[in-house]
């Protein structure tokens, strides 16, 4: 169902990930990244006139598009805080917090918050003591551990008596809500729902309560759920494992290299206290962007949002990440052995928007692996048949310099090395041969189509508006994008390929099949 909230462009690799989603429907969004979306989501003049903006005095930005195709509405809330904003002892907290924000408030999800609260505090003290003891590892007092574990279980059982399970989800479901979900990326955290349009006030009531009064109950059980999510998406999933290993290799300093979900031992040491600190610092209206698209009356929608959200005080502005990824000094290679057939990822460090070079990568990207006429598809899949699938995309986030990634699935008996060599040959062509006018026109034609296609879904439009408002500072980036791409010249492509697509700037990750384990 919520599969249509995030779209893959055809022919793209599915390696970029956003983690998280509360609901079972779409546990991991395999997403194209911002740059790809940029390729696909520039809107024409139509959108410029149709988006209405409103800024609340507390800094919350509201974007609206009125569309009466059906009596439904999609509402997306994007917080401009993601996993890159975590300190090293907080890794995974943005994502775990996203799960926790489904657990209710002081009035929803509880039978009696006043009675529940002291128990929640005792759970926290006990859980922190347990974690501290565990960190002593072999020196830990086993008896103390056992006592603390039992205490924690007893307290959780006691607190559980006050819980009303999944009350947010129940209210939305009863009222016909679909695509109730959330996801966390390197750059941000998003909460989304689609409702029959007469239920928009319900959304405002629930979401403003969530922003003001969230209670992180059932924290340590939910942390177990996230560990299962990690096993499901990364540990037991060879392509997921390759992806996180590849990123951690490509970035030595910048948090772009750290997994959104956190390493297992990170998750094991997250606490409710840390989550609340993160929550209270950043989950505030000045860091929030709301998009409401569908069967609405904008004037009445502004009044509604003012009524429910205007009294929420602003919080801290998210400080910029200070660390910069040092310039790479030579090729990095990393191997993942697994019970799976080979796959390969090749990444090059590159700047992100608003750098003009980012647009040039959009051009390179569409020629490299987008569609049946793309160069890698033609050469590797059709002509040489070294690979069965190829992809290219920018990842893993867009607020900070990222990677241009090429992915390929080798076809036996061809090896990762053969595939790599063929990819490098095609990259060299970008450095020596000028891209034709015909190819550039093909890209612009594609962008024209995508402008319209993306406007055909309330959810897709809400996603793009919140994403670009958050990343580029204005949703108008969607409109300007096609003009910027149109100004890219063949010499720009040559220059950018020569600058970034070079060996010493490269990270290569690949899966090697592990021989069968004997019993």
């Amino acid at each position: 169902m919520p599969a249509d909230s995030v779209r893959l462009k055809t022919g793209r690799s599915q390696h970029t990930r956003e983690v998280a989603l509360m609901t079972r429907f779409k546990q991991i969004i395999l997403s194209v990244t911002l740059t790809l979306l940029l390729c696909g989501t520039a809107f024409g003049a139509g959108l410029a006139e149709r988006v209405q903006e409103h800024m609340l005095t507390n800094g919350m930005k509201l974007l609206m598009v009125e569309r009466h195709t059906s009596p439904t509405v999609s509402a997306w809330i994007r917080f401009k805080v993601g996993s890159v904003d975590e300190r090293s002892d907080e890794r995974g907290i943005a994502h775990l917090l996203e799960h926790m924000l489904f657990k209710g408030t002081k009035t929803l999800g509880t039978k009696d918050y006043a009675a529940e609260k002291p128990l929640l505090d005792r759970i926290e003290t006990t859980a922190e003591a347990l974690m501290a003891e565990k960190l002593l590892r072999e020196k830990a007092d086993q008896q103390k551990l056992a006592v603390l574990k039992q205490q924690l279980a007893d307290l959780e059982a006691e607190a559980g008596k006050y819980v009303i399970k999944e009350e947010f989800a129940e209210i939305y479901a009863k009222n016909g809500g679909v695509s109730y979900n959330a996801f966390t990326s390197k750059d941000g955290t998003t909460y989304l729902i689609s409702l029959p349009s007469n239920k928009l006030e319900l959304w405002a009531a629930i979401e403003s309560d969530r922003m003001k009064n969230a209670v992180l109950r059932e924290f340590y059980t939910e942390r177990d759920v996230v560990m299962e999510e990690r096993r499901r998406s990364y540990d037991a999933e060879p392509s997921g494992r390759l992806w996180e290993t590849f990123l951690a290799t490509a970035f030595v300093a910048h948090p772009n290299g750290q997994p959104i979900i956190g390493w297992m031992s990170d998750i094991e040491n997250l606490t409710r206290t840390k989550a609340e600190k993160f929550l209270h610092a950043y989950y505030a209206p000045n860091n929030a962007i709301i998009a409401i698209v569908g069967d609405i009356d904008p004037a009445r929608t502004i009044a509604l949002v003012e009524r429910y959200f205007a009294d929420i005080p602003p919080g801290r502005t998210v400080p910029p990440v200070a660390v910069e990824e040092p310039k790479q000094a030579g090729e990095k290679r990393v191997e993942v052995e697994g019970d799976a057939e080979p796959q390969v990822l090749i990444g090059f460090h590159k700047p992100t928007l608003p750098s003009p070079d980012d647009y040039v990568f959009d051009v390179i990207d569409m020629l490299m692996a987008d569609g049946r006429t793309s160069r890698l598809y033609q050469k590797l899949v059709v002509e040489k048949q070294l690979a069965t699938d190829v992809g290219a995309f920018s990842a893993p986030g867009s607020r900070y310099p990222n990677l241009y990634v090429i992915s390929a699935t080798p076809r036996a008996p061809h090896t990762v090395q053969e595939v790599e060599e063929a990819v490098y040959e095609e990259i060299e062509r970008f450095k020596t041969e000028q891209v034709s006018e015909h190819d550039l026109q093909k890209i612009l034609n594609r962008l024209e189509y995508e402008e319209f296609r993306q406007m055909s879904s309330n959810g897709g439009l809400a996603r793009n508006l919140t994403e670009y408002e958050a990343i580029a500072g204005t949703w108008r980036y969607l409109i300007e994008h096609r003009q910027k791409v149109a100004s890219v010249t063949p010499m720009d492509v040559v220059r950018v390929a020569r600058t970034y697509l070079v060996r010493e700037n490269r990270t290569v990750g690949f899966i090697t099949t592990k021989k069968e384990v004997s019993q």
Partner: protein
Amino acid sequence: MTFPPLTFEIPKSQRIQLSNGLTLFVMEDHELPIVSLTAYVNTGSIYEPAEKCGLAGLTGAVMRSGGTTDYPPEKLDADLEFMASAIEASIGSDVGNVSLTTLTKNLDKTLQMFSQVMLHPAFREDRVTLAKNRTIEGLRRQNDNPKAVADRELIKTLYAGHPLGRYPTIETVRNIQREDLVAFHQRYFHPDRTILAVAGDVKTDDLVKKLEALFAGWKKSDEPLPTVAAPAAEVPPQVLFARKEINQSAIRLGHLGIIKDNPDIYAIRVMDYILGGGFTSRLTTEIRSNQGLAYSVYSRFDVGRRFIGTFIAETETKSESTAKAITLMRDIIAGMTRAPVSDQELELAKDSIVNAFIFGFVKPDAVVNQQARLEYYGYPPGFLENYRSNIAKVTKEDVLRVARKYLHPDAMVLSVVGRDTAFDKPLSTFGRVTEIKLDTAGNGALPK
């Protein structure tokens, strides 16, 4: 909080019969200058011979990738991509789909190419070989993902001996030749077995004229579709296990389910929602929310259209809680057959299904495709119109009755992929275990 009333009429598309027998559903929508079209063709892998398993899928793929008599593949690809138009073709178990998307200004040319793909695919030899090679590589990789292995082994067992339980192997794909694709296409692609669903920026009269001209010489079928026997009614309960060195087990439990004409379909939908459907389902509440044993857990009756469907419950949990999760799932499923659901559960399920109904109609292309599918699979007239009132009529007694009739917690097939040395209890706790060896040569899984 009170809400303004919401009136919703199911949007209607226009149904038109062309002179060659082709059925057309159209919904004009001029908000955006784009058009989408999907053909539903009565064919499927259920009609392919066992020794050429994979033939239908390859036919679908190469109809598009192999070019047409007028457009060699290179030109078809280049012209379409330059216009930002797309044509895609595929054949699944019981339907073939060929679809088109385009800017309105390129509709004529794209539609002409679409008719070529439908009527005159060339199946060029080198593209047949390419598609076979890619399929074979996919088969070599079919055991990479533990969840996919658990799914596949369950389906193979539930539909043992039936085309729905057949999976291609490297050998069956190698058996397939170009002339097989040509013959398969010729046999099944006919206008009287085709429904077109069109939505977007078109003028209906104009479209009909164009389609009449483009599909003028297309001949009706001259032989009936082959009959395919029903799957075996009884599947003995059993435990399937495949070993992989991973820290989380993929668990699937299931048995055969129902077919679409079953009058209990509405009560089953409500039961399904309560047991394993929404985020508030019994399975999710207990296994995920209360016990933290899984990230994803759900169950579903997949209603069969041509043949009986399935009931499948699934989850993934760390190796050490494998038996615990299986036991909980079985108990929760069995619980549905023991006592009526609560009033609150019943109301939530019904309200949710009824109120979310409109989301099936949010885009014009969803509306026409919905209507095309209902006709393609032969749903009775009024099915959609009466759907909400049929759901609203379901009672707690109905839910208990259908749970007892259609859920068989003691007769499920269990399929597990994982590292058995780390399980909390041996799988033999749940019955005699058949170990499946994952064949790295890609020949599918064979019992050891």
